[in-house]
C-alpha cells in the first residue's frame, strides 16, 4: 500500500486560517448523506 501523505495541494478549502471540523458527504445504503461529521473522538458511529 502506498504511503499516505498530505501536502499543501491537498488543502482545497477557502479559508486556510481555520480550526474547522471535518464535515463530509457519504453514501449510506445508496442514499447520499451530507453533514457527516468525522469525529475521531467518538468510539461509535452514530445515525441521528
Amino acid at each position: 500500500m502506498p504511503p499516505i501523505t498530505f501536502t499543501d495541494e491537498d488543502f482545497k478549502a477557502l479559508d486556510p486560517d481555520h480550526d474547522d471540523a471535518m464535515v463530509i458527504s457519504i453514501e449510506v445504503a445508496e442514499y447520499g448523506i451530507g453533514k457527516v461529521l468525522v469525529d475521531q473522538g467518538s468510539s461509535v458511529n452514530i445515525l441521528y
Partner: protein
Amino acid sequence: MNLSEDLIVPYNEQIFGYSGERVDTRGYLDLRTWIGSQKDGREVRVRFLLVEANTSYNVLLGRPCLNAFGVIVSTLHLAMKFPSDRGTICIVQANQQITRQCYAAGLRITPYSRPRKQHRSEVAMTDLDPRTNTEDRIQPGGDTKEILIGAQPGQVTKIGGTLKPDEEELLGVIILENRDLFAWSSADMPVIHPDVMSHKLAILKEARPVAQKKRKMGEERRRAIEEEVKKLEGDGFIKEIKYTTWLANVVMVKKASRK
C-alpha cells in the same frame, strides 16, 4: 432516510458524551457505506447506533468506521485519505462552508429531551390534597362538656364530661392559663417565624421554567377564594405581588367540615 424498522436491532445501552452526559440509543443497524467520489472510493458495512438527538449533523463517523476504511484525517488540510479497493489513495475533502454552518447551527439548537406525556391541565382537587390522614379525627369517648375560654360566647373547647370535679378544675385551670394558644381566627396567629417552618422548592437547575395558565373558576368558587384571600390579606398572612407570570393557580381543598 427510509429505514426499515426491522433492521434496527434494539440496544438498550446508553452512550456517554465527553462530559459524561448520558444519551439514550434506539438501536443499531449495519449499513453499506460508501466513502469517496463517483469513480474512486470504497464500500464497507458499517454499524451505526441510532440516537435521537438534536444535532446539526446527520451522521457521525467515529473510530470504528474510520479504522474500517483505514482513514487518515488531516484537520489541517480539511481532508482525509484512505486506500481504495483498487489500491489507490482516495482523498475526500471536507466542505468548509457546511462545516461552519453546522457548527453555528449546533450552538443554537436546544438539547433533545424525550417527549413527555401531556399533563392534564385540569387537575382533580382531591389529587392535590396533601393530607394523608383523611379518616375522621379521634373523638373523645363518652360525654363532653364545653368550657368557655375566650371573651366571645362561641370560643369554647371540649373536655370529657365524666371527669371527677377536682380533675375537671385542674384541667380548666391549665387550659385557661394557656388560652393564648387558642386561635379563633387567622388574625390570632399572624406570624410564623421562618425558623419554625419554611417551604423549600427542590428545583432542578437545568429545567426550563413553565408558566401556568390561568384557570377559570366557577362563580361560587371564585367568590369563596376572594373572601379567603381578603381575610388572609387583612391578617397579614399574605400580601399582593406584582409579578404575574409565575403565579400558580389557586387550588381549593375541601375542608373536613365540608365548608
